[in-house]
């Protein structure tokens, strides 16, 4: 009896588990496994996205150009290049319009608007992000395109000597410049909200020091806020670029696109984008044509992947070296 009594604590001490999962309580192991598995599943999904696009698009990538010419849309690289150009061109134009406006709005909300109004005004801009892309497409083609026409004719007649504005003005207004305006509207809330965040993180003491030295508000922003926020702003712009590159519906519905490389903004001969080309042709495509469209999707995926990775890298580098944390 005594031996038994004394052996119990000894035995339980021996059975005292090392820190780690208890074999009698499988819940921990199961739950941990589930959580880890979900995380790994995400990596798998992303790998699958790339590999399925490769598998299904592969036939077009590696097909004989002659076969592609008869059963597909023609030799792959020369076919996809104008669309890739259109994708990048439209996105860059959109950035050109959106970035100054977005930075202005972000500064307005973070440093100019009355404190009480800042939050509601931010929501107002976020409302733009809540409008689905198909609605922007509808609005862009029905409302915006005709409204842009007078501007286009004026630009063409007064600044037509600049190659950008040269050529025969489109009669519908559905040009790449209209698309760029729609895209700019769509990426505006993304860039704005990210910029707003970094502007608000600017060190308070630097701002107050600048003001105390007699700087005007704009000088304070130039000296204390913008240098601090520059990496964040670059990242925001890159993320906006990534969104603009991948945007489909607005371009599909607004642009009367074709397959050519041109810098003219106002004509009816506009370079189409990859995403819009896929959306417009996918329903009727079959066999090699489907493959070719999927391969084009792969190209788009790689372009956006590169842009986004650069953006994330900039953000990560900033997080490591900035004095904010």
């Amino acid at each position: 009896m005594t031996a038994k009594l004394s052996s119990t604590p000894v035995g339980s001490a021996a059975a005292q588990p090392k820190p780690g999962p208890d074999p009698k309580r499988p819940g921990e192991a199961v739950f941990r496994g589930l959580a880890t598995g979900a995380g790994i599943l995400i990596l798998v999904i992303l790998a699958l996205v790339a590999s399925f696009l490769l598998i299904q698009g592969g036939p077009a990538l590696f097909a004989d150009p002659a076969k592609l010419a008869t059963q597909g849309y023609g030799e792959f690289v020369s076919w996809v290049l104008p669309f890739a150009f259109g994708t990048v061109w439209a996105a860059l134009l959109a950035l050109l319009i959106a970035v100054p406006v977005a930075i202005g709005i972000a500064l307005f909300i973070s440093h100019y608007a009355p404190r009480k109004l800042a939050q509601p005004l931010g929501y107002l801009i976020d409302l733009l992000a809540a409008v689905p892309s198909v609605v922007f497409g509808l609005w862009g083609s029905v409302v915006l395109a005709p409204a842009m026409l007078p501007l286009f004719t004026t630009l063409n007649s007064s600044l037509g000597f600049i190659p950008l504005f040269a050529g025969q003005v489109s009669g519908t207004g559905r040009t790449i410049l209209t698309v760029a305006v729609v895209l700019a509207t769509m990426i505006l809330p993304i860039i704005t909200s990210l910029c707003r965040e970094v502007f608000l993180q600017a060190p308070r003491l630097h701002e107050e020091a600048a003001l105390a030295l007699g700087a005007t508000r704009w000088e304070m922003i130039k000296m204390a806020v913008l240098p601090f926020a520059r990496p964040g702003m670059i990242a925001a712009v890159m993320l906006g670029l990534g969104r603009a590159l991948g945007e489909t519906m607005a371009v599909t519905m607004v642009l009367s696109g074709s397959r050519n490389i041109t810098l003219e903004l106002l004509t009816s001969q506009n370079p189409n984008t990859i995403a819009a080309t896929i959306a417009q042709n996918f329903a009727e495509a079959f066999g090699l044509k489907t493959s070719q469209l999927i391969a084009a999707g792969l190209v788009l995926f790689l372009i956006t992947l590169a842009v986004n990775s650069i953006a994330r890298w900039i953000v990560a580098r900033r997080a490591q070296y900035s004095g904010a944390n």
Partner: protein
Amino acid sequence: MTALSHAITQGSLTSGRLPKFATPVAAVAGAILGFALAVIFGGGNLGLAVLLAYLIFLVAMEIAARVIEGPRQAADRRARHLIVGAFLLALLPLASVIFEVLSKGMARFDIGFFTQSMRNVVGKGGGAVHAIYGTLYVTGMATLISVPIGLLTAIYLAEYGIRNRLSKAITFFVDVMTGVPSIVAGLFAYALMGLLVGPGTRSGFSGSIALSVLMIPVVVRSSEELLRLVPNELREAAYALGVPKWLTIVKVVLPTAISGLVSGVILAIARVIGETAPLLIAAGFTASLNNNLFANPMMTLPVFVFDSYAHPGTDVQAYWDRAWAGALTLILIVMLLNLIGRLIARRFAPKTR
């Protein structure tokens, strides 16, 4: 500095400054001049008038400020006016979109629109009930797929794999996934179903997979952020009572963050419910109500809007009216979801302190 010395010689703190009423006066004068010029030279174009008014205002203020206040103050004023102008400019498309969708969408925003499908409808009449059902099915299924995966991943990132290599990789690739173009997600779902079921398969479930690819990263990001907001004291208290880690997460951490998690999921739904391109590819078109998620194409509301606009029949106006009504419905759904999400987040925010 000239302004300063000027002020000192004048012996007054207010000299060398533009009077307070200068800005509104310049704005009104600019507006009147701008509109007058637009009527005389531009045929009364409203856009031109506003643009001219703004430019006149900018130039007038610049000159006045430069002469009276000096270049530094002038630059400050210029920046302020440009920044306010940028903000007002951004409100323009927002107001225009909302106005147009409301005014054009009301024409067919009636009972028929919500009770009839497009089956055997040519021209007037018909509705979007098949598309609304489809959107609910497809988005619901996407939510069912994304929420467990997204939430568990967030739990892994916030609770288990803190700063290890796998969690860093996951964080990076979740960010990458956020940037996957929506049409690529559609192509992925199409390719996946093509291999699993057979080439050319289009179904509601395929659309759900495409939406999940877009939705998972959003859920992960928002959930992870919220789980990190849960104070560590709560976890430590549970551990001190001998509660295993997984029960701590399920019974303590998740309930604390639940409102934020729910609102994050709702916002994620709002983000994907308006997606068109992936559903165009993966779920396809149909004019009839399809209640089977796993077979045959399924119409969804965004695709309905696109289809009605892009492929109108002979009676174009009837199709376009339906497109605008669909757009109105879609915007209302998205804004409602956003509102609910934000309200939940604000009302039941986790008490971190």
